[in-house]
């Protein structure tokens, strides 16, 4: 059923909290996500021409890098992992004509039932964050499952019942938990660090939160870029080599 579930009192709201201050942009979470999920709930995550000139493929997590300028965080690089935010008002679910896309009442996870998806792609158009990717081989839509096959998996040691991305992050920039519980570690982080919603103006009410970069402690001022010296023995030698080689 693609109508949204009635909010249940006291139901969990599972999600991720991602720290943009400490994320180093190493892509480890994306790689481990691919690794786990290509054998998990939505397996496989295909690659198209993986060894070709234009490798392409299906990933649930994409790591962008931006340059932020001005403002309290100073001029800095911000690494930004992008994946499904398990929204509370997910239009990706309500537009689905088949009932393949659904939001779970008990924990808020948004999933695709690949057995009934017709691959109309409308859900991917309805997601403002570009979080859904299409499996060109199976003809169905896939997306982050919040590692639903790990977090409740009793065959795993309790400490490992977390999404693969969270477990693997070397800078501990990713946190998983119940955002409906004000006492949970993730809720406290969000409160302390003023966790942000992405594109709140669109009204999807994402569950995942992003912790913005901390205030720059050292004032950053623009440094003149070092220039290569144009005179001297070194550059004369280089010019000579250049001329000899370009004959």
């Amino acid at each position, binding site marked *: 059923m693609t109508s949204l579930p009635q909010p249940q009192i006291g139901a969990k709201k599972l999600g991720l909290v991602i720290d943009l201050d400490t994320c180093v942009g190493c892509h480890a979470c994306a790689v481990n996500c691919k690794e786990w999920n290509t054998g998990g709930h939505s397996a496989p995550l295909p690659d198209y021409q993986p060894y070709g000139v234009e490798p392409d493929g299906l*990933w649930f997590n994409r790591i962008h890098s931006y340059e932020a300028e*001005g403002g309290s965080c100073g001029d800095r690089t911000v690494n930004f992992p992008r994946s499904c935010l398990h929204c509370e008002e997910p239009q990706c679910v309500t537009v689905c004509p088949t009932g393949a896309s659904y939001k779970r009442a008990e924990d808020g996870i948004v999933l695709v039932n690949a057995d009934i998806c017709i*691959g109309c792609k409308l859900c991917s158009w309805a997601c403002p964050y570009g979080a859904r990717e299409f499996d060109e081989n199976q003809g169905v839509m896939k997306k982050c499952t919040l590692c639903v096959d790990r977090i409740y998996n009793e065959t795993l040691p309790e400490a490992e019942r977390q999404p693969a991305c969270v477990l693997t992050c070397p800078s501990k920039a990713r946190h998983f938990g119940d955002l409906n519980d004000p006492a949970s570690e993730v809720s406290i982080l969000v409160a302390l660090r003023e966790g942000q919603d*992405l594109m709140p103006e669109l009204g999807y009410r994402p569950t995942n939160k992003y912790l913005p970069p901390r205030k720059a402690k050292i004032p950053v001022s623009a440094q003149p870029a070092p220039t290569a010296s144009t005179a001297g023995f070194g550059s004369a030698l280089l010019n000579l080599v250049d001329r000899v080689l370009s004959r």
Partner: protein
Amino acid sequence: MTPASSVLLLTTLTGFGYGLLAWLGLFNAAGALPRGQWFGPVVIVVALGFASAGLMASTLHLGRPERAWRAFSQWRSSWLSREGVAAVLTYLPACGFAALWWFWGQDAAATRALGLVSAAFGLVTVGCTAMIYASLIPIRQWHNRHTVPDYLVFAIFSGAVLLAVMQAAWFGHSGTVALVACLAALLALVLKFAYWRFIDRQAPLTTLTSATGVRQAAKMHALDQPHFSQNYILREMGFQLARKHAAKLRKWTYVLAFIAPAIFCALAAMDVAPVVFGVLALVTTGAGLFLERWLFFAEATHTAAIYYGHTI
């Protein structure tokens, strides 16, 4: 948004088909059509043929076409599902309309009434199609008040052209219908002009600082991409049309889709070679509306592309 020919065909062909059905129902209810026992049923078959061709084309767009029947289930929330249900339901009054026309005659009260019901169902289907686009929040060029009226008027316009051609071919003249088609072309022209003026002045839906939650930064720009080649998001939603190309294609659309058909229909209405000018109007309308629909996709931007540094 990347234009996919299956979806362009779906929206233009169903527009022709349901537009034709609507005009047949309306004109017949008004008693404004010449008498002909075959005419009505043949027009209805053509109308349903166009609509069915469009619906078939749309299933080519699906990853799993063999499961298409599942799309009828979620009409409570999904406009795509509603479109499917409305499209299938339209066959019922339309077939009844054809049967009554044949057996009871085109002037029977029941025939006229069922003609109006068919018209309504056809237009509701077009409205559902339009709502699929109009309801998509991340695409500002679609999620606005222009999309639904535009789709309805383009359907009415193309359907009138088609009816004018068929009537001219059948009876040798298409007077009122061609005049209506001419006026509909001009109305469609005005609406398209208003639409382009509107999207040219729209502000982007979001900014990179809001999209990343880094609100304290004055500005941000993309540095490293997550991947060096394409992915689904860029292939599907990263289509970028150069402004100068868009401007040229818009001019072609004005001429092909609206101005030329308006002139041809006016000539047909004045009984100047109504078949020849009717066919010319039909050809230019078809090509023009296909181009118009291509631009509707190509000019649409998706908020997800902002993550890749695109202007949205």
